[in-house]
């Protein structure tokens, strides 16, 4: 995984998110404050704009710059959460000497763990963690068991989708949606949906490679 890869994926994600913008907007309007899509779109735009600045940087520094941009440019919950993800990924050891799939997956899992610490939310609380944690677990297990990469990508896509759909009937206990009590049920969590779409985009592009 290279900085160039990160930027390419950001561009692909932008298209997917833009295509699904009305749906994501509606989800955060239903159980949040309606800004999640704007936050995510602003964040992706800022990351893509970083290209000329970060394209020749070592991975750790590039990720740190991305993290700072996401953190400061998005604000809100998702700024802190995605910022923490990238900041922590950038702190993984030995990433400036090259990142293979195994290392990339460990970075991601390390990042997700930090996001979990940051938000104090676990699986089942109707947040993006219902996507991130299962996907991180699935990837880690798969790579440790030397699963075929393409099979693993397919599995990750399925896991993300399952996690995202699972939020629908959950009662929110973290984030803004928790203020709704029982009325949070019946709606998919917007952060779970946007995370799932991003994961799907990245995994599919590896699949089609």
């Amino acid at each position: 995984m290279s900085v160039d890869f990160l930027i390419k994926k950001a561009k692909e994600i932008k298209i997917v998110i833009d295509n699904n913008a009305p749906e994501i907007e509606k989800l955060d309007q239903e159980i949040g404050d309606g800004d999640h899509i704007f936050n995510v779109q602003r964040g992706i735009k800022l990351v893509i704009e970083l290209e000329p600045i970060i394209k020749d940087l070592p991975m750790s520094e590039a990720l740190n710059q991305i993290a700072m941009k996401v953190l400061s440019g998005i604000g809100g919950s998702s700024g802190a959460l995605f910022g923490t993800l990238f900041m922590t990924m950038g702190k993984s050891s030995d990433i400036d000497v090259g990142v293979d799939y195994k290392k990339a997956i460990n970075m991601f899992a390390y990042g997700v763990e930090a996001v979990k610490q940051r938000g104090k939310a676990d699986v089942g609380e109707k947040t993006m963690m219902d996507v991130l944690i299962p996907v991180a677990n699935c990837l880690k297990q798969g790579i440790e068991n030397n699963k075929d990469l393409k099979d693993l990508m397919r599995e990750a896509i399925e896991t993300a989708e399952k996690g995202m759909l699972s939020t629908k009937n959950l009662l929110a206990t973290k984030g803004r949606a928790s203020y709704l009590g029982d009325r949070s049920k019946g709606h998919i969590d917007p952060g779970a949906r946007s995370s799932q779409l991003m994961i799907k985009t990245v995994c599919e592009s590896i699949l089609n490679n």
Partner: protein
Amino acid sequence: MKKFINSADDFLKESLQGFGAAHKDIVTCYYNPNFIIRSKYAKKGKVALITGGGSGHEPMHGGFVGYGMLDAACPGFVFSSPSPDQMIAAIEKVDCGSGVLFIVKNYSGDIMNFQMAAEMMTGPSETVLTNDDVAVENSSFTTGRRGVAATIIVEKIVGSLAESGGSLVECKNLGNKVNKNSGSMGVAFSSCIVPAAGKPTFELRSDEMEFGVGIHGEPGRRRDKIKSAKEITNELLNAILEDLKPENKDDILLFVNGMGGTPISELYLIYDNARKMLDNKKIKIARSLVGNYCTSLEMQGASITITKLDQELVNHWDTPVHTAGMRWGM
């Protein structure tokens, strides 16, 4: 969308610039990252009070930066938490070595961003988390209650203590005490419109109100038919009193807050209804505040906040304050 606005993207910046220019004797605004500090530096040795949160609640918080209240405020985008770089930049300007107290409303986004700032900064910091909104059922397993208008009461009272030389821990403890002594609940007659969204956050029929609404237009306890001011006031008061359980002898501060689109004549009417009900319950109003302080853009609605007072709190409430949004004694 009917707003005095040039573009959704420029709304916050232009509004902040106007605020900074109109009150340049009190505040100085910085941009990219955005933060507001006092135009006159506080005295050396003072604990720095820093707060922040999404914009759209004006005058909260920028309007409470100044002598006797806040040292800095970090405004996020409309209804979006500010980011840690804003806090870090503000800290650099206002921390004078006695520590930083963050006053944070209990929202996931705000908490996480302030937490990251606390981790990134070098000096000592403490945090007071406000969660006065009794509309939300409390539970230790969830995010818990929202922080709303009582945050301003915390800012005034802790601001007074910090001004008079209180230590970081003393300030934190007083802030927690005020928060614990406070309860709030609001009702909305109309939705606000977030500039970036361009349309109402929620829809209410012409005879409906949202009872227990959040300051971002989050749904409340229930949607109901519009009622008389007396019925609304009574229900808001009861919900708050049930939570606070003041004793007969307790003095209180009664704070009637407008959401931004309701004229103060109606806020005074609510105040009148509330004071009569409190009088019947033999609860004494020792201090009062009525006006648009913690708003939700142009939302029509109001909230009531009650803070149980003791002599310490009354004394700090009464000290001089000189901010754009609250001023007395100087």
